[in-house]
C-alpha cells in the first residue's frame, strides 16, 4: 500500500476520449451520476461522431465526454480540462489542445501501437509517447488492455468481450483519484447485465481493478477531494436536456388533463425525446413514429383537431420539411408544439454538433405572413420548464409554438432542483360545449381576449364545422377571398402572437446591474458560458451585465426598455448573427454581434476576451 497525499480542489474538468466503440459516453455518464449523487455541482458535454461505428482508431471516430464538477457553482462543462483520459492516439491528437498546460494525461498505451499510429495518421517516428512532445504535461501511461486481459484471464470470456471492459478500468481509476463511491456504477452493471453473469462479473472486476491500480501503484502521488457544492437547499437529481424536455411535455399533459400525442420521425439529436416518451404510455402518452417528418407533424395536427396535446419534434432538416404544415396549423389556429433540437446546418450539416442557427427559420421560415410563438431553453434542466411553457401557451392561446433546444443542452447534464407537480403553473383548457337545435349557430373563429378561437373537437354535438388552409372569414370561419378580410386576418394572427407577451414573465438581468457600460444578451443554450464569462469579467472589475432570453417571440414586453439602459449591447450566438438582426430591427439599437460557428459551444474565455476587446 502506497501513501497518497489528498489534495483539496475547488473544481475539476475531466475529458474521457477514445474510439466510438470504447464506451466513453457510458464511462462519462457513470462518473456524472456518481458525482451528482456525491453532491457536486456539474455540467457535462458529450461530443461524439455522427457515425455509429466510425472507422476504428481514426480521428473521425473519436468520441469524447467532458465533465466539469466542483464545490462551487458550475455553469459550463469547462473551457479546458485538467485530466484527459485517452484510449488511443487518435483521441490524444483530437483532444490535446483542450488540455491545460501541466494537466494530467492518462494514456492507454495499447492504443499507441503501430496500427493505431497509422490509423491516426501519425508516423511511427512521431509517436508522442516516445518523443518529448508531451513534456509539458503529466503523462501517466498504463497498458489498460493488457491489465484488463490479465484480470479477466479466467473469466471465460473471449478477447473481444474482455476488451469491451477496458472503459471500466479507467472509470475505476478515476473514481479512486476523486474519492467517488462505486456503488452506483456496480448497481448499474448488475442491472444492465443481469442476464449475463459472466459479463456482469467481468465489468465489476475490471472496475475494481482500476480502483486498486490507483491504490497500489506509485504512479499517482495525489488523490483529490472536491467538496460538496453549496447549492440552494432542496432535493436534486441529475438531468439531461432531452430527458427534461420529455418530462416537461408529460407534465403539461398531466396538468392540462389531456392525452399527449407525439408525431415524429427519428433524427439526431432529437430522437431521444421519442425514445423517452415511448416509455410512458401509462401517462396517456401516445408516440407515433411516422413515415417521414411531414407525416409526423400532420398526424400531430390531426390529433390536435381531435383534442390531444399535440407535439412534433425534430431538428433543423426535419423542421424544414414540416414548414408547410406549420403554416396549416397557423391557419387552423389549433394548439401545436414544434420541438427543434438544433444542430449545425445547413442541410445535413454536422448532425451531432451544436448550433443556434435555426432562429431565423423559426421566425420567418414559412410562406406568407406566418408568425408563431418561439421559446428557447437555456440549459439542460431548463428544457423542462420551457417545454412545459410551450405547451401552456399553445393550449391556452390556441396557437403553434416552437420550443428550441440544441444538441449541446439536449445531451448535456446538470443537477436539477426539480419542482413538484403541485408547484407547476396550471394549464387551463376548455373545449367548446355541445349545442342543440335552436341554439345560436356555432362560430369556429369567434375569439377570446387572447384572440384564441374555440377548440371544438369532433364528436361534440352541434359543433360540426370545417377548417382548412384557405383564408378564413373571421368569426364564421367560412372560406373568404375578401381583400380586407385577408388583411384583417393577417393582422389578427400577428396580434395573437404579440398578446402572448401579456402572459409571460418580464425579462430580468441574470447578473450585474440594470444599467451600465455593456450588456451581454444571449439566448438558448449559451447561458452557462455567458454567465461564467460575466462572472469572470465582473471579477476583473468590468461593468458588464448579462440577460438571457428564453421567450423570443414575442419578446418580453420590457425588453426594449431593459436594453436602452446600456451603452453597448453585445449578442454572442452560435450562428452567423441571427438574434442580433431581430434586435436591431425591432429596437433600432446598434447591437454588436459575436459569432462562433464551429459546431462547438462557447468557451467562457473566448467570450471574456471578446468583451475585453470591445471595452478596452
Amino acid at each position, binding site marked *: 500500500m502506497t501513501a497518497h497525499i489528498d489534495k483539496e480542489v475547488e473544481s475539476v474538468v475531466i475529458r474521457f476520449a477514445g474510439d466510438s466503440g470504447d464506451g466513453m459516453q457510458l464511462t462519462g455518464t457513470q462518473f456524472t451520476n456518481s458525482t451528482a449523487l456525491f453532491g457536486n455541482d456539474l455540467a457535462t458535454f458529450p461530443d461524439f461522431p455522427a457515425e455509429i461505428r466510425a472507422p476504428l482508431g481514426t480521428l473521425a471516430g473519436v468520441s469524447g465526454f467532458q465533465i466539469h464538477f466542483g464545490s462551487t457553482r458550475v455553469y459550463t462543462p469547462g473551457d479546458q480540462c485538467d485530466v484527459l483520459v485517452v484510449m488511443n492516439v487518435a483521441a490524444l491528437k483530437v483532444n490535446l489542445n483542450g488540455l491545460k498546460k501541466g494537466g494530467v494525461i492518462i494514456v492507454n498505451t495499447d492504443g499507441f501501437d503501430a496500427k493505431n499510429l497509422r490509423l491516426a495518421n501519425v508516423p511511427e517516428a512521431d509517436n508522442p509517447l516516445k518523443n518529448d512532445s508531451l513534456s509539458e504535461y503529466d503523462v501517466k501511461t498504463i497498458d489498460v488492455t493488457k491489465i484488463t486481459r490479465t484480470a479477466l484471464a479466467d473469466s471465460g470470456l473471449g478477447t473481444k468481450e474482455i476488451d469491451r471492459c477496458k472503459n471500466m478500468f479507467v472509470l475505476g481509476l478515476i473514481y479512486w483519484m476523486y474519492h467517488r463511491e462505486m456503488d452506483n456504477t456496480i448497481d448499474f452493471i448488475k442491472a444492465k447485465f443481469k442476464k449475463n453473469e459472466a459479463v456482469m462479473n467481468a465489468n465489476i472486476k475490471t472496475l475494481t481493478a482500476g480502483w486498486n491500480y490507483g491504490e497500489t501503484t506509485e504512479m499517482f502521488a495525489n488523490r483529490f477531494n472536491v467538496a460538496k457544492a453549496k447549492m440552494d437547499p432542496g432535493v436534486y437529481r441529475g438531468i439531461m436536456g432531452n430527458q427534461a424536455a420529455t418530462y416537461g411535455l408529460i407534465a403539461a399533459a398531466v396538468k392540462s388533463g389531456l392525452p399527449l400525442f407525439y408525431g415524429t420521425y427519428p433524427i439526431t439529436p432529437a430522437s431521444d425525446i421519442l425514445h423517452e416518451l415511448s416509455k410512458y404510455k401509462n401517462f396517456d402518452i401516445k408516440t407515433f413514429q411516422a413515415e417521414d417528418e411531414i407525416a409526423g407533424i400532420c398526424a400531430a395536427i*390531426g390529433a390536435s383537431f381531435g383534442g390531444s396535446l399535440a407535439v412534433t419534434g425534430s431538428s433543423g432538416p426535419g423542421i424544414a420539411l414540416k414548414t408547410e404544415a406549420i403554416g396549416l396549423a397557423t391557419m387552423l389556429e389549433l394548439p401545436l408544439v414544434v420541438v427543434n433540437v438544433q444542430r449545425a446546418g445547413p442541410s445535413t450539416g454536422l448532425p451531432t454538433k451544436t448550433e443556434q442557427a435555426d432562429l431565423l427559420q423559426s421566425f420567418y421560415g414559412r410562406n406568407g405572413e406566418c408568425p408563431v410563438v418561439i421559446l428557447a431553453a437555456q440549459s439542460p434542466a431548463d428544457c423542462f420548464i420551457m417545454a412545459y411553457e410551450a405547451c401552456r401557451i399553445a393550449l391556452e392561446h390556441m396557437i403553434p409554438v416552437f420550443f428550441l433546444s440544441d444538441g449541446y443542452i439536449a445531451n448535456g447534464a446538470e443537477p436539477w432542483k426539480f419542482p413538484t407537480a403541485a408547484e407547476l403553473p396550471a394549464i387551463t383548457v376548455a373545449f367548446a360545449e355541445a349545442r342543440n337545435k335552436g341554439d345560436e349557430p356555432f362560430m369556429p373563429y369567434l375569439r377570446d381576449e387572447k384572440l384564441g378561437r374555440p377548440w371544438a373537437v369532433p*364528436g361534440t354535438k352541434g359543433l360540426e364545422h370545417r377548417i382548412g388552409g384557405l383564408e378564413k372569414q373571421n368569426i364564421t370561419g367560412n372560406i373568404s377571398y375578401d381583400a380586407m378580410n385577408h388583411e384583417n386576418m393577417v393582422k389578427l394572427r400577428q396580434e395573437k402572437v404579440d398578446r402572448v407577451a401579456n402572459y409571460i414573465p418580464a425579462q430580468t438581468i441574470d447578473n450585474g446591474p440594470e444599467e451600465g457600460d455593456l450588456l451581454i444578451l444571449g439566448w438558448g443554450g449559451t447561458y452557462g458560458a455567458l454567465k461564467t464569462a460575466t462572472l469572470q469579467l465582473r471579477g476583473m472589475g468590468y461593468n458588464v451585465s448579462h440577460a438571457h432570453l428564453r421567450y423570443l417571440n414575442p419578446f418580453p414586453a420590457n425588453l426594449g426598455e431593459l436594453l436602452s439602459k446600456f451603452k453597448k449591447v453585445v449578442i454572442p450566438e452560435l450562428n452567423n448573427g441571427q438574434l442580433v438582426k431581430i434586435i436591431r430591427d425591432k429596437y433600432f439599437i446598434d447591437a454588436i454581434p459575436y459569432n462562433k460557428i464551429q459546431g462547438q459551444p462557447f468557451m467562457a474565455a473566448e467570450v471574456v476576451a471578446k468583451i475585453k476587446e470591445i471595452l478596452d
Partner: protein
Amino acid sequence: MTEVAEKLTSKDFASDQEVRWCPGCGDYSILKQVQTVLPDLNRPREEFVFISGIGCSSRFPYYMDTFGMHSIHGRATAIATGLKATRPELSVWIITGDGDALSIGGNHFIHLLRRNPDVNVLLFNNQIYGLTKGQYSPTSEQGKVTKSTPMGSLDYPFNPIALSLGADATFVARSMDRDPKHLQTVIKRGYEHAGTSLVEIYQNCNVFNDGAFEIFTEKGSKKLETIMLENGKPLVFGENNDKGIKLDGFKPIIVDLNDASVNDLWIHDEEDLVKATILSRFYDDPSVDGHFPRPFGVFYVNNKKDTFDNLFNAQIAYAKETFGKGDLDKLIAGKETWVVN
C-alpha cells in the same frame, strides 16, 4: 358509436356552402352518393369527420355538414391517421384525388394502407390535374397530351388497385361516378370494413379530361368493357352476359359462354389475395385487341389484420393496467435524488 334518435336524411349532411365544382363534374355524383349513404349508417352527424388534401376533390369537406378539414396537398392521410389513432370512436373519411394521393402524397398513401387504421379513403381518379388546369397526373395514360406535355407524357401510369394491394391494403375496391347504386354499395361496404378501405372512383373531369372513362360508363360499351365483381359469383360480362373469365393455372382466359360452361369460370373470392392480384392487372388499354374488361366492385378484403387504432390504444391500455396510472412526481424525481440542506 352513439345511436341516433331520429333518422337523418341526406339533406342533414349538406352544409350551407355553395358547391363550386364545374357544372357537369363527376364530383357532384360522388357527393350525392355519400350524402345518401351516411343516413343509413345510423350514426350521429358529429361523429363523422371528412379530411381532404388539395385538388378539386378536396373541396368535398366544405359541402358536408360534418366535422371537416381541408388540409394541405397529399397529407390528409397522415392527418387522418393522427385523428383516428387518438379518437378511434370517430368515423374518419379521407377525400383525395389521383394527384393528391398518388403523386405528392404517395408516401403517406402507402403507409396508411400498410398501417391499416379504420378509416375510409375515397380516391377520386380523373386521370388529370383539374385544379391547376390540366396537366397530366400519375394515372394519366402514357402519351397524354396536356398543357405540360404538348408532345405527350412520358410517365407510365400507376395502377391504383395494384399499388394498394402491393401496400397490403385490407379493403380494395373500384367504382364510378356514373353508377350511383354501385357507388353507394361500395362506399357502404368500405365503411363497414374494420381497417382502411380504399375505394378508387372513376370520376369524369368534363373540362380537362372529358370522357376518360366513357368506355366503362356509357351504356353502349359498359357491358362489354367492364366486369362487375360479386363475391361468390362467376366472372361474367358481355352484351348478353355471354362472356366469362376462366383461370388456366394463374393465367386468365376470356371464354365465350356459347362454347364453355359457366361452371368452369373463375368464381370471385374477395378474400383471395392471389386472385385479387391477377384481377388488379386487368388494366389494359381498351383499344388493344384481346384486352380484358375492367373490373369494378370489391377486389379484396382482409378481415384478419387488426387495425392500427386498435393496436395503438391497446398498448396504452396495457401500459396503464400493468404499470398503473402515471405518477408525475415520481417521474420527475426519478430513481436517484439527493438532498442539499
